[in-house]
C-alpha cells in the first residue's frame, strides 16, 4: 500500500506543506468580507492541487514530477504559537457540542454488532477532528522548519492610496510574526505582490494602471492583479460552493462567497496554481540545492565530520537548558533542518532522511532535546513515507515521544502530536493493540483529553485481532470516569453504556455494580430518571458489597425514585429476594384446620387417621356423567370455599446487611367468575409482559370486590430471612389463580414477583420434572359456594403435664355460618392419652364425678367399651351445630407416658344442606404435649407363707418430680378376682401422708384371690375390667371417698394401658393390675383440681421384667 494513501500519509500531506504568509491591507479584507470571508479563507479552497504536474529537481540530477501539492495560507497575525488555554477552551466547547448530539435514549450497541462493523462506523466521527485540532496546537514552533513561511503574499487593494508605498509598508511593519523577527528563520523570504480589485467599485482600468507601476517597482514576475466580486446580480448562491466549510462560522441567512462568480473562482485558481508552480516550488528547489551545497561543503566528507565532532566535544560544558543552545537561521544546524523539511515537503524523502540523520546526532550531542525529539519525529515519519524499516520508524517515534515527555510539561503538546502520529502509524499496520497502549500513554494531566484518548484506546482494543473485549470495556469505563471529572456527563454515559454490553452476564460483581451505579447516577443528574432507576435496580441486591456501599446504593436509589415522585413498578425487584421454592400454599377444601400447626402436619398422617370416618369417594358421585366432569375439574385444580382464606407462606430474604422496610406485601390474584368457563382456566401467562398487564388491569379495577387480600408490613434486618404469611379470601364462586406477590420497598418502589414465570424458567433449565405440574396447579383454585365450617379447639390444653395427670378438658366446636352441620364423628390418634367423655360429665364437678357412688351405675362402662372398639367416637345422632351455639363436649386427658406427645384429632361432619358443593368436611386439630415423669411405681408379689390364696404385695413408689409433693390417695386392684387389703394401718405407712420430691416409699399389702370359676373370670378379665377392690391410703380421719376405677374415664384409660402393656407379654389369668391414685399436695393452680393415676398392669409372680416406663407394670424380683 502506498504510504501516501494511508490515513497518516494523507494527514502528513495535508499538514506538512509549505506555509504562505499573507499580509493584506484593511481595504482588501473589507472587499472580501462582502462575501463573509476573510481574504485567506477566500483563497484557501484553491491551495490544494491533486494534479499540479510540476517537474522538480532537488539535490540529485534526476528530476521527478510532483502531482499532489498543497499550500497552507495564514495571515501574518496567525503565524504564532496558538494560545494553549484558548485552544483547550475551544476543544472543550467542541466536545460538549459533540456530546449534545448523542442520543441518550437509544439502546447501546450490542457487542456482536460492534465487532461486525468497521472502524469508521463505531467510532464517533469527531475523534478525527479532535486529533487534528490537537496536532495544530503545536504549530509554528521554532524548532521545526516546515511551519516556517516559505513565501509571503502581500496584498493591497486598488482603492488603497499610494498602493506601492502600502506594499513596502506592509512588510516593514513590526507586526511580522516573531519567527521572522527573532531570527529563528530567514527574514529574506520569497515575496509576491498581489493587487486586489473589487469589481463593484468600478472598472479595473485604474487597477491595471497600478499593476504596471508595481511591475516596474517589484519586477514583472512578482506582481499580479486579482479581480473579485464580479457578480453584478446581487447575492447568488454559487453551485458547488468551494467555501462551504466556512459556512458554519456565519449566520445561516448570509451566504458565503455570494459575490464571487465563476470567473472569480477561476481567476483565484489560476493565481494559486501560478503561485505554486511558478514561484514557490522553484524557489524551494533552488533553496534545497543551495543548502545542500552548503551542507556538503561544511559537513560532508571525513574531514568535516571529525572537525564537527571535535568542535562539539569542546562545547560540552555549554548551558544545559531544556531547549539546548539557541540556533539562529544562519547556523548550519538550522540550515540542515530547513533542508530536511523542504525536501520532505517536496517529497524527496531520501534527501530528507539523510539530513535528519545528520542533524539528529548534532542535536543529541548538543543536548538540544526538543530539537532532537522533533528531528526523531520527522525521521519516523520519513521512514513511514518511504515505507521501509517499520521497526526503525517505530523506534524513532517512541524515542521522540519519550524525549518530549522527558523535557517536561512544556513539551506535552508536542508529545501528544507525536503520539497521535505514532498511533496512526501503528493503526495503518493493524497493530491496534500497540496503538491502544500508545493512546493510554498519551493520557496527561488534562483529564478531558485523556478521556478522549482512553475512549480511542478502547476502540483500538475492540478492533485488534482477536478483539480484546475486556480491555475495551475497561478503557471505556476509565474514559467515562474522566469525562465525568470534566462534567461531560453525556459522554460519560455514552462510554459507560457501550461497556454495558461487554460486562453483561459476567460474574464480577464489583464491575457490574460500578457500571450500573454510575450510569444510574449520571442519568439522574441529567434528570432522565426512568433510565436512572432502570440501571440502579441492577445494583440493589449487592450482597457482596460492604455495608457502606450497600447503604450508598440504596440511599441513592431511593433519592432518585423520590425525586421523580412516581411510584415505580418493577417486575422481579431483587430487594428483597423471594424464595419461590419456599412457596407454601395452605387451603381448605373438605379438609379444614383448627390451627396453623395442624396444617403443617403431613397429609398422609391425617389420611390414615381419617381412613375410617370419611366415606369412600364413590359415595359422592351420583351418576357417571357427574362423576366425569367433577373428577376432571377437581383433578386439575384445587378447591377452596368462598369466604375462606387461602394462606400462602413465602420466604423473603434480605440480601443486604442493612435493614429494609417492606410494606403492603400482598398476593396478586385473578378471579374469573363462572368456574364452568373452561377457556379462562387454561389461560396461562406467557411472559412477563402479560404479567405486567395483569397487574395494571388489577390496579385499574381496584374496586374489585371478588376477593380480599391481606397486607403485611415487614422490617427485614440485615441478611434476615422471614416467612411472610399472606392470605386471599375469595368472595364469589369462580376460578381463582394466585399469580404472584407484590410489595412496596421503602414505600416508594413496588416490586412484583411472578410465581408462574419463574416456574417456567426452572422447568426449562432443569428439563422435565414431575413435581412442577403439581406445584403450578397449587396456585389454581376452583372457588365453590360458601360452606359451613367448624372451628374447634380444646380449651386450655396444658403444654406441660406430669405423667399420670388426669384432666378434664372441654372440646368446643363452633359453626360461624348460617347452615347447620350434622353427623359428627371424631377420632383421636392416641386414645391412650385422650379420651372422649360423656356429655353428662360436663357439668359435674371434677374429680368428684369420679368418686364411687353408693348406688353404682355401671351403664357407662358398657357405653364406652362399645365406642372404644371402633376407635371412632360418634356424637349422638341428634347433634346439630347451629350458628351461634357452640357445642361443648368433655374430653379426658391422661398423660400416659413421659415424652413429647403429638395428639392429632379429627372431627368429621356433614352439611345439613346437601345441595352445597361439598357433602362433608373434616376439622383437623393438633396439640403438642410435654409429659414429664412423676411417680415411679413398681410391685413385687410373693406368695404368702401361710395361706395358699394370699399373696404379699410390696409397692415401691418414688417421687421423681423436681418439686411436686404428692399425696397418695388410693390403691386399687382391678378385676373381681382379687381383693386387696392393708397389712398395717395407714398411719404407719405414711407418717407424713405425702411423698416429697425425690422421696421413695415402700409398703406391703395383702392380696387375696377370691376366684371361683376360672373360665368365667378369664372371660371377664379380657373383655372389660370389672369391679376391683380399693384401699384408701389417705389419712384415716379424713375419710375421703374413694375413686371408682371401674368407670369411665379411668376404666377406659386402664383398658388402653392394658392393651399397650400386653404387647410385651401374653395375658396371664394370674396377673393382676393395680391403679395408684394420688393427688398433688399443693396444686400449682388451685382452680383446676388434679388427679394422678398410675397404672401397673399384668403384675404377677415368678416373672422377670425390665422396667421401661414409669407407672407401668413391674414384676417382682422373683423370690424363688
Amino acid at each position, binding site marked *: 500500500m502506498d504510504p501516501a494513501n494511508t490515513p497518516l500519509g494523507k494527514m502528513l500531506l495535508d499538514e506538512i506543506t509549505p506555509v504562505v504568509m499573507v499580509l493584506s491591507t484593511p481595504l482588501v479584507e473589507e472587499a472580501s468580507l462582502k462575501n463573509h470571508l476573510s481574504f485567506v479563507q477566500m483563497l484557501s479552497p484553491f491551495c490544494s492541487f491533486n494534479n499540479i504536474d510540476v517537474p522538480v529537481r532537488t539535490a540529485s540530477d534526476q528530476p521527478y514530477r510532483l502531482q499532489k501539492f498543497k499550500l497552507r495560507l495564514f495571515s501574518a497575525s496567525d503565524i504564532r504559537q496558538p494560545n494553549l488555554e484558548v485552544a483547550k477552551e475551544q476543544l472543550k466547547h467542541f466536545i460538549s457540542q459533540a456530546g449534545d448530539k448523542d442520543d441518550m435514549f437509544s439502546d447501546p450497541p450490542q457487542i456482536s454488532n460492534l465487532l461486525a462493523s468497521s472502524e469508521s462506523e463505531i467510532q464517533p466521527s469527531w475523534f478525527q477532528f479532535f486529533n487534528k485540532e490537537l496536532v495544530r496546537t503545536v504549530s509554528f514552533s521554532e524548532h521545526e522548519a516546515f511551519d516556517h513561511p516559505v513565501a509571503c503574499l502581500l496584498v493591497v487593494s486598488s482603492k488603497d492610496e499610494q498602493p506601492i508605498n502600502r506594499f513596502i509598508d506592509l512588510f516593514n511593519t513590526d507586526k511580522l510574526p516573531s519567527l521572522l523577527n527573532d531570527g529563528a528563520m530567514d527574514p529574506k523570504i520569497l515575496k509576491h505582490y498581489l493587487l486586489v480589485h473589487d469589481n463593484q467599485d468600478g472598472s479595473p482600468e485604474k487597477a491595471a494602471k497600478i499593476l504596471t507601476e508595481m511591475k516596474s517597482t517589484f519586477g514583472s514576475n512578482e506582481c499580479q492583479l486579482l479581480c473579485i466580486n464580479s457578480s453584478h446580480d446581487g447575492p447568488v448562491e454559487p453551485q458547488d460552493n468551494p467555501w462551504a466549510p466556512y459556512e458554519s462560522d456565519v449566520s445561516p441567512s448570509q451566504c458565503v462567497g455570494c459575490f464571487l462568480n465563476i470567473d472569480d473562482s477561476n481567476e483565484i485558481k489560476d493565481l494559486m496554481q501560478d503561485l505554486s508552480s511558478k514561484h514557490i516550488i522553484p524557489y524551494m528547489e533552488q533553496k534545497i540545492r543551495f543548502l545542500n551545497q552548503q551542507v556538503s561543503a561544511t559537513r560532508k566528507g571525513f574531514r568535516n565530520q571529525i572537525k564537527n565532532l571535535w568542535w562539539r566535544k569542546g562545547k560540552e560544558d555549554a548551558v544545559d537548558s531544556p531547549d539546548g543552545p539557541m540556533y539562529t537561521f544562519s547556523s548550519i544546524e538550522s540550515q540542515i533542518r530547513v533542508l530536511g523539511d523542504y525536501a520532505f515537503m517536496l517529497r524527496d524523502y531520501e534527501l530528507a532522511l539523510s539530513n535528519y540523520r545528520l542533524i539528529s546526532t548534532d542535536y543529541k550531542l548538543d543536548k538540544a532535546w526538543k530539537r532532537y525529539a522533533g528531528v526523531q519525529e520527522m525521521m519516523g515519519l520519513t521512514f513511514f513515507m518511504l515505507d521501509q524499516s517499520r521497526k526503525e520508524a517505530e523506534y524513532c517515534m517512541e524515542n521522540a515521544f519519550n524525549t518530549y515527555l522527558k523535557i517536561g510539561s512544556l513539551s506535552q503538546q508536542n508529545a501528544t502530536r507525536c503520539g497521535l502520529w505514532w498511533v496512526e502509524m501503528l493503526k495503518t499496520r493493524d497493530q491496534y493493540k500497540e496503538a491502544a497502549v500508545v493512546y493510554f500513554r498519551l493520557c496527561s494531566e488534562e483529564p478531558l483529553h485523556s478521556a478522549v484518548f482512553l475512549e480511542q484506546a478502547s476502540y483500538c*482494543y475492540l478492533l485488534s485481532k482477536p478483539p480484546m473485549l475486556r480491555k475495551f*470495556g*475497561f478503557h471505556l469505563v476509565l474514559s467515562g470516569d474522566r469525562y465525568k471529572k470534566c462534567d461531560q456527563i453525556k459522554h460519560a454515559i455514552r462510554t459507560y453504556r457501550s461497556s454495558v454490553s461487554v460486562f453483561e452476564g459476567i*460474574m464480577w460483581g*464489583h464491575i457490574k455494580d460500578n457500571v450500573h451505579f454510575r450510569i444510574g447516577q449520571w442519568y439522574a443528574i441529567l434528570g432522565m430518571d426512568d433510565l436512572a432507576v432502570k440501571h440502579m435496580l441492577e445494583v440493589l441486591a449487592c450482597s457482596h458489597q460492604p455495608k457502606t456501599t450497600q447503604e450508598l446504593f440504596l440511599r441513592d436509589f431511593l433519592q432518585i425514585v423520590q425525586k421523580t415522585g412516581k411510584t415505580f413498578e418493577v417486575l422481579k425487584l431483587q430487594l428483597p429476594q423471594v424464595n419461590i421454592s419456599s412457596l407454601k400454599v395452605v387451603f381448605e377444601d373438605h379438609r379444614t384446620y383448627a390451627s396453623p400447626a395442624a396444617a403443617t402436619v403431613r397429609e398422609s398422617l391425617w389420611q390414615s387417621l381419617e381412613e375410617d370416618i370419611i366415606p369412600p369417594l364413590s359415595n359422592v358421585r351420583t351418576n357417571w356423567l357427574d362423576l366425569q366432569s367433577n373428577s376432571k375439574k377437581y383433578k386439575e385444580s384445587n378447591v377452596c370455599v368462598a369466604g375462606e382464606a387461602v394462606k400462602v407462606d413465602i420466604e423473603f430474604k434480605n440480601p443486604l446487611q442493612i435493614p429494609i422496610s417492606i410494606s403492603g406485601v400482598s398476593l396478586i390474584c385473578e378471579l374469573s367468575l363462572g368456574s364452568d368457563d373452561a377457556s379462562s382456566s387454561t389461560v396461562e401467562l406467557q411472559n412477563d409482559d402479560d404479567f405486567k398487564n395483569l397487574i395494571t388491569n388489577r390496579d385499574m379495577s381496584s374496586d374489585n370486590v371478588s376477593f380480599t387480600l391481606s397486607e403485611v408490613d415487614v422490617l427485614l434486618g440485615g441478611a434476615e430471612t422471614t416467612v411472610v404469611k399472606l392470605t386471599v379470601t375469595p368472595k364469589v364462586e369462580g376460578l381463582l389463580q394466585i399469580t404472584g406477590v407484590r410489595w412496596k420497598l421503602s414505600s416508594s418502589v413496588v416490586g412484583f414477583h411472578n410465581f408462574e414465570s419463574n416456574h417456567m424458567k426452572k422447568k426449562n433449565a432443569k428439563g422435565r420434572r414431575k413435581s412442577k405440574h403439581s406445584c403450578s396447579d397449587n396456585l389454581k383454585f376452583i372457588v365453590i359456594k360458601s360452606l359451613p365450617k367448624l372451628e374447634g379447639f380444646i380449651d386450655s390444653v396444658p403444654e406441660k403435664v406430669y405423667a399420670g395427670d388426669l384432666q378434664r378438658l372441654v372440646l368446643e366446636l363452633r359453626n360461624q355460618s348460617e347452615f347447620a352441620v350434622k353427623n359428627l364423628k371424631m377420632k383421636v390418634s392416641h386414645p391412650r392419652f385422650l379420651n372422649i367423655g360423656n356429655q353428662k360429665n360436663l357439668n359435674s364437678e371434677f374429680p368428684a364425678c369420679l368418686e364411687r357412688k353408693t348406688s353404682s351405675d355401671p351403664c357407662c362402662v358398657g357405653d364406652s367399651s362399645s365406642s372404644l372398639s371402633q376407635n371412632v367416637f360418634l356424637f349422638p345422632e341428634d347433634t346439630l351445630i347451629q350458628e351461634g351455639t357452640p357445642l361443648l363436649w368433655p374430653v379426658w386427658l391422661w398423660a400416659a407416658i413421659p415424652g413429647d406427645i403429638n395428639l392429632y384429632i379429627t372431627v368429621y361432619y356433614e352439611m345439613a344442606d346437601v345441595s352445597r358443593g361439598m357433602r362433608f368436611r373434616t376439622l383437623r386439630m393438633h396439640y403438642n404435649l410435654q409429659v414429664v415423669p412423676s411417680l415411679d411405681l413398681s410391685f413385687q408379689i410373693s406368695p404368702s407363707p401361710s395361706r395358699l390364696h394370699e399373696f404379699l404385695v410390696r409397692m415401691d413408689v418414688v417421687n421423681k418430680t423436681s418439686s411436686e409433693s404428692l399425696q397418695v390417695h388410693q390403691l386399687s386392684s382391678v378385676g373381681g378376682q382379687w381383693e386387696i387389703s392393708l397389712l398395717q394401718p395407714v398411719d404407719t405407712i405414711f407418717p407424713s401422708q405425702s411423698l416429697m420430691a425425690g422421696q421413695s416409699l415402700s409398703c406391703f399389702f395383702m392380696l387375696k384371690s377370691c376366684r371361683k370359676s376360672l373360665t368365667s373370670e378369664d372371660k371377664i378379665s379380657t373383655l372389660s375390667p370389672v369391679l376391683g377392690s380399693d384401699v384408701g391410703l389417705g389419712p384415716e380421719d379424713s375419710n375421703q371417698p374413694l375413686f371408682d376405677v371401674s368407670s369411665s374415664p379411668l376404666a377406659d384409660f386402664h383398658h388402653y394401658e392394658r392393651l399397650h402393656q400386653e404387647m410385651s407379654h401374653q395375658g396371664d389369668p394370674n396377673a393382676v393390675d393395680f391403679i395408684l391414685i394420688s393427688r398433688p399436695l399443693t396444686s400449682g393452680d388451685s382452680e383446676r383440681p388434679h388427679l394422678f393415676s398410675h397404672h401397673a398392669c399384668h403384675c404377677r409372680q415368678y416373672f422377670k421384667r425390665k422396667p421401661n416406663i414409669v407407672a407401668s407394670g413391674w414384676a417382682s424380683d422373683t423370690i424363688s
Partner: protein
Amino acid sequence: MATTACFIIVSRNDIPIYEAEVGSATKREDAAQLHQFILHAALDIVQDLAWTTSAMFLKAIDRFNDLVVSVYVTAGHILSICGCFIDGIKFVFLFLS
C-alpha cells in the same frame, strides 16, 4: 512502602470463585472494583498468552499504572489465578490439597 494486592481465582468462563484483598495499604474505597477491572481486563492478555507458552506462571503480563498483574494458569486452563500488586511483592502460592 505500603503494599496492596488483590488475589482472585478465576475458573472457566471467567467466573471468579475466590477473591481476597490483602496488603498493608490503607484501603481505597474503590480499590476492590479497580482491582476487579484490572484483573478482568488482564484476562484478555492471558487468553492470548496462555496458548503461546508452556509456562504456567506468567509474570507481569499486564500493568495498570503501578499495579502489575501476574497470573498462574493451571493445566488445561481450567483455572487462572491472578494477582495484582504494587511494589512487586513476591508471588507465593501455597497449595493445599
